[in-house]
């Protein structure tokens, strides 16, 4: 109570502080919610859960917004919160989600064209990737982070990250080539 009294400034300053915090948060949400939601989706494989995690992430971000000094670091900051939030989901016993539930991967992409069929298969393959290969790939492609940044965010060394990225692409390519061979064989 006394802390807040001491910090008390004249009203207009407080008001404008709050306004600028609100504005900062608004732009953060608008600019990054898409990436954060997609990242969450590929971590957990369920749209509803991804939305919940995104909510929690942004709520925590709001509470801790003052600790974000550099707006350029906002994305990696949010992803760090998101990963922690996702990990917490497994600590809480009542949520008994496994990692991406491949069989339930939403079939919203009715395969009318060849492109969409291929994309559906690719989605399945991405979901099939081990999380340790999938996550660096998500960070690289959704997050746009460099090998060094990914290494830092995942607390791994850079070589490990590069190896995992290599294996992730390799596995996807292999899987897709096998599918297309099978497709041709069937056809």
């Amino acid at each position, binding site marked *: 109570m006394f802390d807040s009294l001491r910090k008390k400034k004249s009203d207009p300053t407080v008001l404008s502080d709050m306004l600028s915090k609100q504005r900062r948060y608004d732009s953060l949400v608008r600019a990054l*919610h898409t990436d954060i939601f997609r990242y969450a*989706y590929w971590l957990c494989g369920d749209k509803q859960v991804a939305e919940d995690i995104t909510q929690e992430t942004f*709520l925590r971000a709001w509470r801790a917004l003052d600790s974000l000094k550099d707006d350029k670091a906002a994305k990696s900051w949010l992803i760090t919160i998101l990963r922690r939030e996702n990990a917490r989901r497994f600590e809480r016993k009542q949520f008994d989600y496994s990692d991406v539930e491949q069989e339930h991967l939403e079939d919203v992409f009715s395969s009318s064209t060849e492109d969409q069929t291929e994309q559906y298969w690719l989605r399945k393959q991405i979901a099939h990737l081990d999380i340790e290969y999938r996550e660096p*790939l998500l960070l690289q*492609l959704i997050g746009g982070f460099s090998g060094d940044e990914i290494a830092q965010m995942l607390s791994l060394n850079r070589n490990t990250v590069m190896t995992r990225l*290599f294996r992730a*692409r390799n596995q*996807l390519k292999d899987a897709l080539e096998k599918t297309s061979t099978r497709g041709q064989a069937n056809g």
Partner: protein
Amino acid sequence: MDDLKFRRHAYADPNDQSVEFIEHLATHPQDAKRVNELKAFDEQINAALNVDVPNDLADKLLLRQQLTVHQAHKKRTRYLVTMAASIAFVVGISFSLLQLTPVNLSQQAIAHMNHEPKALMSDKDINYQDINFKLASIAGLKQNKFINQPGRVFYTTYCDFQGVKSLHLVMEDEHGKKVTLFIVPAETRMHLDAQFADEKYKGKGFESSDAYMLLVGEPDSDLEFVQHEIEHTFI
């Protein structure tokens, strides 16, 4: 850069901008073609990763935050109200406790003497009607009055006995010595001593017409004379 190393680089990051990698591509057109394929493949993966985001997600996020702020604000207001109520409560309690503490009139009277030496310097001659006028404005002494001049009165003022409004008079004894009289409305928490004294003054307490009288004078003044006079004029 051998083929294995090239493959590792290309698959880990087809957009690798390291000098080594770019030089390798410049000299190996076949590998450059493979990298372009990989880049195209990345496009495909990217397209696959771009799952649809619920349309109203951004609005939902903002709404949830606004609600949280609102809740926090409400909680803080409630907290402040609770705080204010507790403080008011404590103040109220201590105030009434203060009102209930017994008052030792003798000590108060002596303390008054020491605080107001100027009262004894006064040389006026005040009519008892003026004193009655003052008495009338003191709760608890409204019914009391002097029916006659109680000897010469040099000085009169209101004073405060631990929150109780009282009257302070300076009178004269038989030998012309100044004697101070305090008239205090009778209250149960007051403690009245019949005799009291310190190094400079001696005092006498008595009750007259439902009011406490405290006479304070120098050790050789004749308090009984003044008491007698008061008992005959004050009703």
